[in-house]
């Protein structure tokens, strides 16, 4: 372990072990965090990063080992204990109350007399000090994801945290917002605060952190000074063997128009416009990427094509190989499949929509095939079992058996099952929403590979993504959505990340260049 002689240790984890039943989440982990540094915690899914941080912030209690804060051994039994020691964590999923304002959320749950005015002054002082840009009287439901995150961070700071843990903070941000967050993080660092950031994105590790610590399968591997390492070395250390970091992009072959969307407009239940006049086409044998800040209409767009969303106006036309056309608008998923339109959809909400968490692998396979059945009345249990076995074998799904409920599997394995099932039907159109969200590098590359294979088979692929680097590497064309409108479609092969970032935040596709990030 690297010892930074001049720096003072803020927190020291010694021999931390945590087990969940038979699963060892952390095994004898030793980790030091220094004052005034930004430490990246790197590791694949299930490598125990979040568990380790949860023990630091009082959500879990270690089975073995010590936590030493500011030189004294600490017993952290609850988040409150953690706050008293100056440790605060910002979780991946925000824990805010929608109908409260920023200020109300920040002071929520604190002891003592309620003094909103005084609190607001103090919060404003913190914001000014570190450069947070936020309207304290704005209600959470009016806020963008990035604003909500800011509230979470300020909340932790207001409680006097000197050690901040940020769990995948950039997963939901645009490049511009990420840069803003990094700026604030640097300000906090120079104020002497220690920050631990969990992220999968290596270029961000390089951009922001002073030091990187790597976990693999619950064990502490090593730490490195960020400036002395590189992406390849970090990945190899994380995975345990050498990995290639390039995504293939075969040239599209025999491209024909497969789906044509024209002037699609979608309103939500409250009458708010979710998609406005969206037009584009998808060709067979190509990957069309869809970029945009989360909640810009991506979900509604895919759901509309799949027949799961009420559409105000427009048309969605499917073009068969022989040139026949079908209008999909207004049809239900079942009617679409009865037309012989083979449409597969990997939704964002894997366990809430794509799969049933409490059902086992085989029963989840049945979701798509149960209608065929053994007879009119009875289901066929054998075929889905075989399919499940095939997918487990081919995609190397880690599961105790195919009778295990899918909710017990890790995110990557859940996604492999879902994508595997959707591909098994031999789709002509494959739609994926955030197919690699939360997945580690190995699983992500398996998914990219599967998508490319589908593309080569002549499937039209719609890939909604959040990581612009991946979109630029994988997609033939990228459609950028901003507030439910198409702000442009660019060629993937000569797309520029900053330009995409700009298009995601403004509706004018003329504003090229000018801003560097």
């Amino acid at each position, binding site marked *: 372990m690297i010892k930074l002689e001049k720096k003072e240790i803020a927190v020291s984890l010694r021999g931390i072990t945590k087990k969940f*039943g038979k699963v060892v989440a952390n095994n004898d982990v030793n980790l030091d965090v220094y004052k005034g540094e930004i430490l990246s915690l790197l590791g694949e899914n299930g490598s125990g990063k979040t568990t380790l941080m949860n023990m630091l912030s009082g959500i879990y209690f270690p089975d073995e080992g010590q936590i030493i804060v500011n030189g004294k051994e600490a017993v952290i039994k609850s988040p409150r204990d953690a706050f008293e020691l100056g440790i605060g964590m910002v979780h991946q999923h925000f824990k805010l109350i929608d109908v409260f304002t920023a200020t109300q959320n920040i002071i929520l749950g604190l002891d003592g007399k309620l003094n909103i005015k005084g609190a607001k002054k103090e919060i404003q002082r913190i914001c000014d000090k570190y450069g947070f840009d936020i309207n304290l009287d704005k209600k959470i439901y009016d806020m963008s994801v990035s604003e909500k995150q800011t509230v979470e961070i300020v909340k932790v700071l207001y409680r006097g945290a000197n050690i901040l843990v940020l769990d995948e903070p950039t997963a939901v941000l645009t490049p511009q917002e990420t840069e803003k967050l990094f700026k604030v993080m640097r300000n906090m660092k120079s104020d002497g605060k220690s920050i631990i950031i969990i992220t999968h994105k290596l270029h961000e590790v390089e951009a922001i952190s002073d030091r990187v610590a790597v976990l693999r399968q619950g064990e502490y591997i090593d730490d490195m000074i960020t400036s002395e390492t590189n992406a390849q070395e970090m990945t190899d250390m994380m995975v345990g063997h050498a990995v290639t970091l390039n995504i293939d992009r075969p040239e599209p072959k025999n491209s024909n128009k497969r789906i044509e969307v024209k002037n699609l407009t979608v309103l939500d239940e409250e009458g708010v416009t979710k998609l406005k006049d969206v037009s584009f086409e998808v060709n067979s044998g190509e990957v069309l990427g869809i970029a945009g800040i989360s909640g810009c209409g991506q979900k509604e767009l895919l759901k509309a094509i799949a027949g799961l969303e009420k559409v105000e106006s427009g048309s969605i036309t499917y073009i068969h190989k022989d040139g026949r056309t079908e209008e999909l608008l207004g049809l239900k998923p079942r009617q679409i499949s009865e037309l012989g339109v083979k449409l597969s959809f990997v939704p964002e909400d894997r366990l809430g929509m794509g799969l049933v*968490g409490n059902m086992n692998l085989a029963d989840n396979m049945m979701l798509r095939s149960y209608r065929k059945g053994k007879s009119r009345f009875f*289901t066929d249990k054998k075929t889905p079992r075989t399919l499940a076995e095939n997918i487990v074998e081919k995609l190397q799904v880690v599961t105790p058996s195919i009778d295990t409920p899918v909710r017990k599997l890790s995110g990557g394995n859940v996604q492999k099952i879902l994508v595997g099932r959707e591909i098994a039907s031999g789709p002509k159109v494959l739609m994926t929403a955030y197919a690699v969200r939360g997945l580690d590098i190995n699983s992500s590359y398996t998914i990219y590979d599967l998508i490319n294979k589908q593309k080569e088979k002549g499937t039209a692929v719609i890939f909604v993504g959040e990581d612009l680097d991946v979109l630029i590497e994988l997609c033939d064309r990228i459609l950028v959505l901003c507030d439910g409108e198409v702000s442009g479609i660019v060629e993937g092969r000569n797309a520029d990340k900053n330009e995409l970032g700009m298009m995601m935040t403004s509706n004018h596709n003329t504003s090229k260049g000018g801003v560097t990030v």
Partner: protein
Amino acid sequence: MSFHVSKRSDITTSKAWIIRIIAIVAALVVCGIVTTICTGDNPISIFTTIFQGAFGSQRKTFITLQYVAILLIISLALTPAFKMQFWNIGGEGQVLMGGLASAACMITLADKVPNAVVIILMIISSILAGAIWGLIPALFKALWNTNETLSTLMMNYIATQLVAYFVIVWEVPKGSGKIGIINQDSNVGWLINVAGNKYLLSIIVAVVITIGMFIYLKYTKHGYEISVVGESQNTARYVGINVEKVIIRTMILSGAICGIAGLLLVGGVNHTITTTISDGQGFTGVMVSWLAKFNPITMIFTSLLIIFMDRGASEISTAFELNQSFADILTGIILFFIIGCEFFIRYQISFVKANGKEEA
């Protein structure tokens, strides 16, 4: 020293049953202590009495089994709805409506058509009446997403009042406020005694419905759709299941089976109708179904357990010359333990000593 409660990730079936058996033993011990304090009798004799109450003679055994059968049928009726996460607590009303329809056929058609026709009409009408009582809240749920807990509960009150009304319309003799035994002389509409045993019919029907429900839920497309809708309506819509149709279809089935229970109660067991004919079993069935985790086969045991304890408790109060309230106290204690033990099956308690080490 402090303790904290955490969710068990897994528990073996045998371990779960050991916990349940401990709970039953604990329930019996507490019942024994309470009875001993109140009566001064030997606890062993109390336990013998409980057993005697349920299985003391062939007749008692058959009565117990018949009670089990009726409770089982009602529990099975509620099960598909629960599996769909449609909280049908209207079993009581659906049973009553089935019973009312049977009684109506028996009273109004007695002298007009042959006995066989009366019985066939009773079967059809009671199934229909139960089904309609299940359909109404299902329609509300499917069309306007109304909360089914409230609507099914309210349908119970309507059913009770309807029965109360018709009891007065058909009361015999006038002014008594009761119907009394229907067709006592002609026995028209009395369901047949299988092999000369008047308890056997309900038991056979219960066995058939148990097997049928087991297959329906486990092996049919309908059963699969019910599970998917129950787990996640989003997933159901995503794979093209018509959620509204499944809700309506399942509640019709649920109500129809409750109707059969009503038919058996009126036509086979009591030969009369009162507002309390289902005796709260529409609610007890909720518990039976839950305790069995919606598995029809396990439900045989959970319903047996509840009836056994219940019959035992009332036997104690008779044998030791205590009133019915005492039996209710004992039943309460027993249910408390049986339901309470589910907590220990789902969660484990670990004790944390001051030094921070954790012990299971």
